[in-house]
């Protein structure tokens, strides 16, 4: 029985580890400035936890096989433990866990405590059941006001976010259902939700933040690779949660300017 159990525990452990190490399924390729940091911290955590996982599970399997009761087993050591060992592994674990944590905090801090770089591209992201809208403030650099009373999700576009078209600052605001971003520019995001909580998640950009009704959350990030990336809502928001999907197009600065100009032209 001890042998069978060791075999099963070892098999489970090695198969699980194989798929991690072979990266059969892994983080999608990162496409933002923070990705390298996040992935590095992930890899470090992964290596440390992987070693502990292997040691603990293989050790467990070995112990149950090695110390199965046999007629000729030597008497057990009558021991209630070993204080020195307890202290050693407590201190080691504490240093390991807390040290790991402190190392990873830098990226988190830089994204949240530092303001966006000067000249960052402002985009407002609005989540509602079950769509994302993106608003660009236009040449004046100012968002027009919005009003809950004007919101009409069924109409889509400007009406969905409740843009107050009487406001002069709103005249040049562009509202779209697809997000366009210039590559290698810092993006200054304002995140809002009109009905329930949503979460703006772009796996490839290593970006996630809940959009909470009543809050306007500011975040910033920098896409670094031209391409199309999927947005998946990551906070349960109702029956259409699974299809609350969107696209981010990261394009060159010229393409971005052209695209924005075309939207402005459409609007006039």
């Amino acid at each position: 029985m001890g042998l069978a159990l060791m075999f099963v525990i070892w098999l489970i452990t090695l198969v699980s580890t194989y798929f991690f190490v072979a990266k059969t399924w892994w983080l999608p390729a990162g496409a933002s400035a923070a990705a390298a940091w996040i992935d590095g911290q992930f890899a470090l955590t992964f290596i440390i936890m992987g070693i502990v996982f292997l040691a603990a599970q293989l050790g467990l399997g070995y112990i149950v096989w090695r110390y199965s009761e046999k007629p000729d087993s030597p008497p057990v050591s009558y021991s209630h433990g070993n204080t020195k060992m307890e202290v050693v592994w407590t201190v080691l674990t504490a240093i390991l866990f807390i040290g790991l944590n402190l190392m990873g905090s830098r990226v988190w801090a830089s994204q949240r405590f530092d303001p966006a770089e000067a000249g960052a591209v402002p985009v407002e992201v609005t989540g509602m059941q079950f769509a994302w809208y993106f608003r660009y403030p236009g040449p004046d650099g100012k968002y027009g006001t919005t009003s809950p009373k004007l919101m009409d999700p069924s109409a889509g576009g400007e009406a969905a976010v409740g843009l107050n078209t009487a406001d002069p600052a709103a005249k040049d605001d562009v509202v779209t259902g697809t997000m366009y971003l210039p590559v290698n520019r810092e993006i200054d995001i304002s995140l809002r939700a009109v009905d329930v909580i949503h979460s703006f998640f772009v796996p490839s950009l290593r970006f996630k933040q809940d959009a909470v009704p009543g809050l306007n959350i500011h975040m910033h990030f920098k896409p670094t690779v031209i391409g199309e990336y999927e947005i998946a809502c990551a906070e349960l928001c109702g029956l259409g949660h699974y299809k609350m999907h969107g696209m981010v197009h990261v394009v060159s600065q010229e393409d971005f300017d052209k695209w924005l100009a075309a939207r402005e032209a459409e609007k006039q």
Partner: protein
Amino acid sequence: MATPATIHSHAPQGFIRKYIFSLDHKVIGIQYFFLALTAVFVGMFLSLLMRIHMIWPNAALPLVGEIKPETYLTLLTMHGTIMVFFVLTTAPQGGFGNYFLPIQIGAPDMAFPVLNMLSFWTTFVGFVVIIAAFFVTGGAPLHGWTGYPPLSAVQASGPGEGLGADLWITSIAIFCLASLMGALNFITTTLDLRAKGMTLMRMPLTVWSWFITAILGLLAFGVLLSAGILLLLDRNIGTSFYVPLIVMNGQVMQHKGGSPLLWQHLFWFFGHPEVYIAILPGMGVASQILSTFSRKPIFGYKAMVYAMLSIGFFGFMVWGHHMFMSGMSPYSAFAFSILTMCIGVPSAIKTFNWLGTMWKGHIRFQSPMLYAIGFVSLFVSGGLSGPFLAQPVLDIQLHDTYFVVGHFHLIMGVAAIFGIFAATQYWFPKMFGRMMNETWARIHFFITLAGTYAIFMPMHYLGMAGQTRRYSQFTEVAYQSKLIPLQTFMTYAAIITIAAQFIFLVNLFWSMFKGPKASDNPWEATTLEWTTTTPPPHDNFGGRTPVVHHGPYEYGVPGAPKDYVMQNDPATIATH
């Protein structure tokens, strides 16, 4: 050790007083156990429907018909709620705790038998209320077991958010009341009714785990109860505790100024300790069984006690790690993150000590031991994904993905369930007077161990690849549809594992009536429940009052006539 049962206190006569509205903690424990058993099969059936729907979203199922996306969300909401409250909180604490805490400390019953009965029947009402949510107009709610407002607070937010959601939160509130009663009883009993010689540091680790769990329950359920009442008020009389000004389907709702994050703080202030409420009794049982079946004292008894105490203590200071992506102040995320890493330390101590207990032992592979070893393996696997999620920077990628689902299912779900399996196999002889079938228990153990790993380990891969949780199907997002083959594998694993649970169920009922008669101490264990008859008499010790002379895990004592010394053994043998 059999002592003739001379019953001093009057055992109740008549079926109703004896088995229905019983004041006997043993009967109440069995009632809790069967309530949890019913609930776990309901919850498991819901998960089966979920797994099938994810892979074949348009399949017409017998009896159930086609599952719509909103129905999928009601399934996951009810699965989570039923499992967390009516299984993981009910079976280990209400069931085994109720039955064995008084016996293990040498008490004739709980401190407040009437309160104990009330606590069970209140839990029962809570269960009836939550099941009723399936049958009302609009059906059960779809807001997930965490019930984040505004989704859970506004009727217009989706189907099931009408009466179904009211019943859901009412059921939870009722459950909170019942748990508060139970917690008071457990704490008082442990502090006041210990037999002579049963010092705190001679209590079995199971008693420590139930005691600490009760303290956690007392502090946590009160908060959830209040939070739930506020949610009911928001839903029904137009208050705005949790709901700011929102627009739902183009309509401006009649709410203003509330904070959705307030609910998250209150909910997780309960919700994180709840994780430990579910797992601590499993830790206690695993410690008890690993020592008994390794024929060795538990390694580091005091360290185990302090570890559980610090897990309980830190457990109340880490709730914010569920909210790193919520818009909460990023400064507090630092604090919550460091404290969460701290809680990993006592968990690691426990694992070291379990391995240390088995090291150089004489391991006997009877079924309770198998499940206890499974518990350790699952606890390690589920625990080690914790330090990923505790780091806000990694949570950016992993929060609300399947990585989280895999993490908490392994540790809070399956590890805790293995604790329940271990406890069932271990105490079944004492509770029902018969032994369970070992062969079928082994078959069930191996299928369930491999099966749960096959279901929950791939969730970590899915989460890394960015698969978001609570999606009723994966066809709408291109990168997620590529992961469907892995989901399909998990569904097949789930079907096999769920089927295997009927082995356990049949073994349980068959053994209850047909199993071989159990002796008073079939496992050669040392704690007080094994000093009394099987099953124990109404007052637990047949008029005797046990006197305790030894610690709980005296195995392999040099110079003792047998390889174990029972806690009430008056012989003067040098034990620590």
